[in-house]
């Protein structure tokens, strides 16, 4: 094949980022093999999902920023339509209406909104002077709030907060005044306090959500019910110690005391078997990926690419923080996987899609400098 200047010889892939993601995938397979009770079947399934994820990433990495920008409003409209459809004809599972049954597969529209919302906000700001004025800021907030509320209604508090965060990160990076940021933080804190400390909570939270918050504050109050997850998870983490019990030797996971050990609570398995050293190593890989992601954002040409890259990276970090915070008992239990480690296809594909877009942004910049 003739190498032309049109085609990037590296297929637009960022080598350091790719190495980081491969490292995570390796960690994922190792921990998952242990967490699943040494099941080859699960390992193969996860490998296939990672393969699909990387393939989607490879495809998206080839998409130019301005093409993406052109399609963004269409994505947003389609996404919103699907969210409304979920509320009207969605499939109910685990007490929430989150899925669309497409006949051959079940599809969770909120997942793709995680990418679409930051794209939309970045698209909105791309041709406007920054920092934005209050009128545009208000409009951007509405663009964020509508999908957030639709998803919160399913109810899926974790995802809706994450989507709100991904949109708000674009606002932050777009340079909204600090006074506004701190004001919003104060107002938000006040609202949370008002809701949780007064009878208002009965209107805002579903009973199971309120139970999770209470469980966080005092997991021992219901050791066999809603507190069970967090108690067993803390036991798994704590008993791992500095160096861990060794791979495949975690008693909490292998004897099945730890629930959801392949999915949301997989971090506890890693902590139990590899100890504090393993935890720090994992966090270092994450920090490396985030640092690289943010570096790509700063190097991107054009504000759309910058905002998208920055928001995707920061959202990735929120995943990590919320999941580890939840598993270690710092945050309430919300159903968020540990990115690229937990078993589960949707989140792998959506996260790797994000990195694909990120790499596309980077490749664009490199082409320019050549």
């Amino acid at each position, binding site marked *: 094949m003739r190498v032309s200047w049109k085609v*990037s010889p590296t297929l637009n892939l960022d080598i350091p980022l790719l190495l980081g993601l491969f490292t995570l995938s390796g960690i994922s397979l190792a921990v998952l093999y242990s967490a699943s009770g040494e099941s080859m079947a699960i390992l193969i399934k996860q490998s296939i999902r990672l393969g699909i994820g990387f393939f989607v990433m490879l495809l998206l990495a*080839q998409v130019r920023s301005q*093409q993406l920008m052109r399609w963004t409003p269409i994505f947003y409209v389609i996404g919103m339509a699907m969210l409304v459809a979920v509320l009207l004809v969605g499939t109910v599972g685990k007490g929430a209406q989150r899925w669309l049954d497409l006949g051959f597969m079940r599809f969770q529209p909120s997942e793709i909104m995680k990418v679409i919302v930051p794209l939309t906000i970045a698209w909105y700001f791309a041709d406007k002077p920054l920092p934005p004025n209050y009128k545009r800021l208000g409009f951007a907030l509405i663009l964020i709030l509508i999908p957030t509320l639709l998803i919160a209604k399913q109810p899926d508090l974790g995802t809706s907060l994450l989507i709100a965060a991904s949109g708000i990160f674009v606002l932050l990076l*777009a340079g909204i005044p600090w006074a506004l940021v701190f004001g919003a933080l104060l107002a938000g804190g006040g609202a949370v306090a008002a809701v949780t400390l007064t009878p208002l909570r009965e209107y805002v939270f579903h009973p199971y959500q309120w139970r999770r918050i209470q469980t966080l504050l005092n997991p021992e109050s219901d050791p066999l019910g809603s507190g069970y997850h967090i108690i067993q998870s803390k*036991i798994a983490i704590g008993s791992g110690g500095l160096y861990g019990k060794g791979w495949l030797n975690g008693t909490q996971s292998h*004897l099945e005391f730890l629930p959801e050990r392949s999915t949301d609570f997989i971090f506890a398995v890693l902590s139990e078997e590899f100890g504090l050293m393993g935890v720090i190593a994992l966090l270092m890989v994450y920090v490396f990926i985030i640092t690289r992601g943010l570096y790509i954002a700063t190097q991107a040409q054009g504000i759309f690419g910058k905002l998208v890259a920055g928001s995707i990276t*920061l959202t990735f970090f929120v995943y990590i923080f919320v999941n580890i915070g939840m598993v270690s008992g710092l945050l309430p239990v919300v159903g968020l996987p540990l990115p690229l480690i937990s078993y589960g296809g949707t989140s792998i594909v959506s996260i790797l899609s994000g990195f694909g877009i990120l790499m596309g942004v980077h490749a664009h910049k490199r082409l320019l400098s050549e």
Partner: protein
Amino acid sequence: MSEQSPLKSQKSHYSSSMLLKNAIAESRLFNDRVLIAWGLVICMIVLILIGRMFHLQVLSYDHFTTLSERNRLKILPIPPTRGLIYDRNGIVLAKNLPSYTLEIIPEKVTDLDALLLELQQQISISESDLKRFHRSRKRTRRFKRIPLRFRLTQREVARLSVRIHEFPGVEINATLSRYYPLGEIGGHALGYVGRINEQELKRLDVSDYSATQYIGKTGIERYYEDELHGTVGFQQVETNVRGRILRVMERQNPVPGKNLYLNMDINLQRFAERLLAGERGALVAIEPATGGVLALVSTPGYDPNLFVNGLDHKTYQQLRLSLDRPLFNRAIRGQYPPGSTIKPIVGLAGLEYGVRQAGTRTWCPGWYKLPKQSHKYRDWKRSGHGHVSFHQSVEQSCDVYFYDLAHDLGINRLSTFLQQFGLGHPTEIDISGELGGLIPTREWKERRYGTAWYPGETLIAGIGQGFVLATPVQLAVSTATLAMRGKARQPRLVFMTEDAEQKQMQPTTTKTLKEIQLKNPEYWDDAIGGMEAVVHGIRGTARRQGKDLSYHMAGKTGTAQVVKIAQDARYDADKLDKKYHDHALFVAFAPIEKPEIAIAVLVENGGSGSRTAAPIARQVIDYYLEEVSRNY
């Protein structure tokens, strides 16, 4: 998309950024924000997360390790093997037999209903078995064994074992259960074990009995429960969250219970039981020098094996409500008026307190009257015994002599003396449930009835009637005390305990009873001489037993009234219902020169001691001296 011209793409990009001159400022603003996000937010939060992990994994490591181990490791108790019981010759009286249980692990069964039908064709499975099985199946995890049939017969075990591979999930498991190979023989002495009930659970050491199913309910099995039981063992196992055992980490073996060797000679016991068969009665034979119980009989008996695995309601009611009271251990719990059997001791009291001399004679006209009273206290012999000494009074069992003597002694001196011979309080034989009999005093009657003691009651007490009550084992002990001239020992059924693992024998501790010191040791000869005459004398009440004796035997007959005979009326056995007949008693020991056996025999409603009880005692002593004792 790569086919698009890069130039065109760039152009369109820049045309969309309308304010090109602001691009550099915007870029700087953006980069500042990214730097703040990275430095302040991301690094700080990562440090917070590491801090949290440090807190959990380093500072609280011990706490969570303990919790993790507690999750994972379970302590399972292992029951100790119950000690065996042997007679003095090493014949097994109580042992442990494997009892086979058919168990099913539902997890391994594909079609449970079909399996149950198939099993029903092989062995008998009752409706209640099935009901219990289904009930416990609902409460039990699918991987645990659920019993379907208990106590499979050898034939059923054989039939199932051949085809067991065809039934996955079906197991035949053996547990040890108590078995008494001789059945009824010695049953009242051995007692039996049964399943632990809730009351017992409250007083038991819960951890020591955590794996034990059976506990001694009566007899030796109960009294020696601590020795027989042993010490529970443990295994530490790793289990998963549902309690399935994955592997054994550590094991501490149980210590088996101690084996017991009895003083009882099972052949003598069997012989004695046969002699009393068909009667309601009791027999206790003691080796006077040691206090060892050679035989302890209470008839009718029962098969203790019935109780081990629980007997059905109907059989239990039959045993419980039977007029013959087979569950009642007469030897230690039956309290009877000892009648004339205590006369040698009463006479001894007369000598000891100086109220009579050995040669002092009393005139017996066949009745006795208290001064200034008209009531006649009858002698059993209407015509009277004439002038009788202590010796003759014992030989012929003269009542008047003892009425007169008891009157002179007074009730309190009489009671004090009788109590030294083990009467009126439990002998502390090593078997549970013993009763203490009764030797009355003035104070006792005051307390019990709130009325004064009447002199007439002293007379009746002097011939072992009225308030006086004694158990057969007490009479055997008092006879042994006479035989040993005051140097008696506590009666003991168990002779040795044996450490089952190290095979070390250890004798059980026996207490020497307080020795009775008489002012003149010759008094013993007077009492024993009288008892010798009972058997060997021409007028002895048991002279028929003295025929062809190859040894010297001392004895005393007794006949205890069950119904009060009206003044001037005669006791006529033929006219009375059998249950109102007198109780027949006989106490004896032999040989007089070197006593080897002391015995007390009681036959409820047996009529006269000399006719019913004495022949039994003679045969038992004959058997012991000729067949048993020679072998030691």
